[in-house]
């Protein structure tokens, strides 16, 4: 909208304030301005340049282009290699770049572009940090499953390609995905969050106590010496699907009697919510090492030591990460000289 450029509020904040856009983080302008972060997007978004300008609230530099004819206009564009594809698409010529009829096209392009940048941003350190704040505030809602006891969820996509499916909510407590309760989220593309964010969040913030409900404050796992803080497969053992397992599985009953598995209507899906009572059963590497200890000693030794190393590593990583965050909340603010590296 032409009004958005004049308004004090930036396009990004007004976009994130829209009804139904509650899950979105505000992508920092530095992130968008780094061309490296936009690699490959110009082929995916029509009117890429205009859309990018709209997102960044940059006034189009076309004051004198109004009188120019099409050819010259296109020459100008071709000089700017970035949007040759968008500008030449039929019906999307940009010589009327900011008149009303085009604005809706640019607006939707901008939303698409923002979403795709958002998918990348929330996997960057600054982005995932911002999403963790939104997670703590419960912006993403809670798991509808009764036995998950209102634990917080994370917005995820089932595809990284736009237009395939809407945004879903991933519950780290039962490791399943749910449809957001409000229909207004059914217009939000899942690709704007992507398939990676949910899993990456769990790896980035291993210390969150995933069994806590949204009504309780977010806490890190309690660290009393008596507590079991053992790691399992890269996460804290207590954070391995805390909403699943014996006692958290629905047992159908009729007048107090369990419905037998052998019955036609008997339970068939309990495995989906099951978890071994002793989660160390899931430590397949260790069991493999234990089973093969006799046959070849050398290998099992290396496996054992390797396992010991991997057990330590995530914890160390998390600490390192927190230190880095404490020093410098947004790695995107690092000087452009090592901007590419900071993104990683």
């Amino acid at each position, binding site marked *: 909208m032409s009004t958005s450029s004049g308004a004090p509020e930036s396009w990004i904040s007004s976009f994130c304030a829209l009804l139904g856009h509650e899950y979105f983080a505000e992508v920092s302008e530095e992130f968008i301005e780094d061309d490296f972060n936009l690699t490959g997007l110009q082929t995916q978004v029509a009117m890429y340049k205009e859309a990018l300008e709209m997102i960044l609230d940059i006034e189009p530099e076309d004051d004198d282009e109004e009188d120019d004819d099409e050819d010259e206009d296109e020459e100008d564009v071709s000089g700017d290699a970035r949007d040759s594809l968008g500008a030449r698409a039929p019906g999307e010529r940009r010589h009327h770049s900011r008149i009303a009829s085009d604005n809706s096209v640019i607006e939707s392009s901008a939303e698409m572009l923002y979403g795709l940048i958002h998918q990348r941003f929330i996997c960057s350190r600054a982005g995932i940090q911002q999403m963790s704040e939104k997670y703590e505030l419960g912006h993403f809602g809670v798991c509808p*499953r009764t036995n998950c006891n209102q634990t917080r969820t994370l917005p995820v996509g089932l595809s990284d390609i736009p237009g395939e499916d809407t945004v879903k909510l991933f519950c780290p407590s039962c490791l*399943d995905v749910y*449809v957001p309760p409000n229909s207004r989220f059914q217009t939000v593309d899942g690709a704007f969050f992507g398939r990676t964010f949910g899993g990456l969040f769990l790896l980035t913030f291993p210390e969150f106590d995933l069994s806590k409900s949204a009504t309780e404050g977010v806490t890190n796992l309690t660290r009393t010496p008596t507590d079991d803080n053992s790691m399992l497969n*890269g996460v804290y053992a207590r954070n391995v699907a805390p909403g699943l397992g014996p006692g958290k599985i629905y047992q159908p009953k009729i007048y107090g009697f369990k419905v037998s598995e052998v019955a036609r209507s008997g339970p068939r899906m309990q495995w*989906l919510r099951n978890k071994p009572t002793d989660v160390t059963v899931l430590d397949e590497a260790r069991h493999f090492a234990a089973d093969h200890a006799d046959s070849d000693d050398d290998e099992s030794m290396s496996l054992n030591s390797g396992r010991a190393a991997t057990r330590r590593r995530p914890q160390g*990583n998390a600490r390192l990460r927190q230190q880095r965050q404490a020093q410098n909340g947004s790695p995107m603010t690092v000087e452009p000289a090592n901007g590419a590296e900071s993104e990683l």
Partner: protein
Amino acid sequence: MDDFASESDSDYASYWRDWFISSRGNEYFCEIDEDYLTDRFNLTGLNTEVQYYQYALDLVTDVFDLDCDDEMRETIEKSARHLYGLVHARYIVTTRGLAKMLEKYKKGDFGKCPRVMCHSHPLLPMGLSDVPSTKPVKLYCARCEDIYNPKSSRHAAIDGAYFGTSFHNIIFQVYPALIPAKSAERYVPRVYGFKLHHAAALVRWQNTQRDDMRRRLRKMDVESGFKDGDGEGEGDEDDEVEDDEELGPDDFDAAEVGAIAQATAGTVA
């Protein structure tokens, strides 16, 4: 419906049950037959549970004509709703009640399963306890056999005992054709295409549980109900990867590849 005209004859809302089931928040209830309500046998024991039992029953059956103040009326009204709920729990497991709830189930009056892999399978209301005022109503999905909280707060306030712990299981015993095909389709969390180690290990363990169950059932010649037939084992891997569309090299841009290096250095399986 044609005798709605007579409604104006009474000062108080006649056809109390009509009003009750059509009022907002009571969408889960079906209408209890007059015959069922007037048979005292069906109400056995409820007189100790409901305050002003007789007045409440009169109100529910539209024969209430006590002259009383608003406060008293409010109390009786509340009792009537409670009584209706308790009778409802008994009624919906009768043949007629099951048929009525089946109609509502088919229309999706109880909502759709929020689990993505259930593909909006209709839900059934259920209680976690048959004792009134202990647990609010929950919704049961026959496809994933799990229970969910109602989306709306006005439904979350309804007592679960008004539906009971047995109804949703009885309906599938009475109408076995309604039992949906089970599916092993599931969500596997991934980071840049790589499964999360702890989640993947759990999935593998769960799959062995499922295969064990299917083997047990097959030994007893019981149909397991899985739509993917006998492809046990080999079908599972397909289900696991079904959300995994291979990304072409073009879709993997430099930023992602770099981040993969970072992520895989950590704990990704």
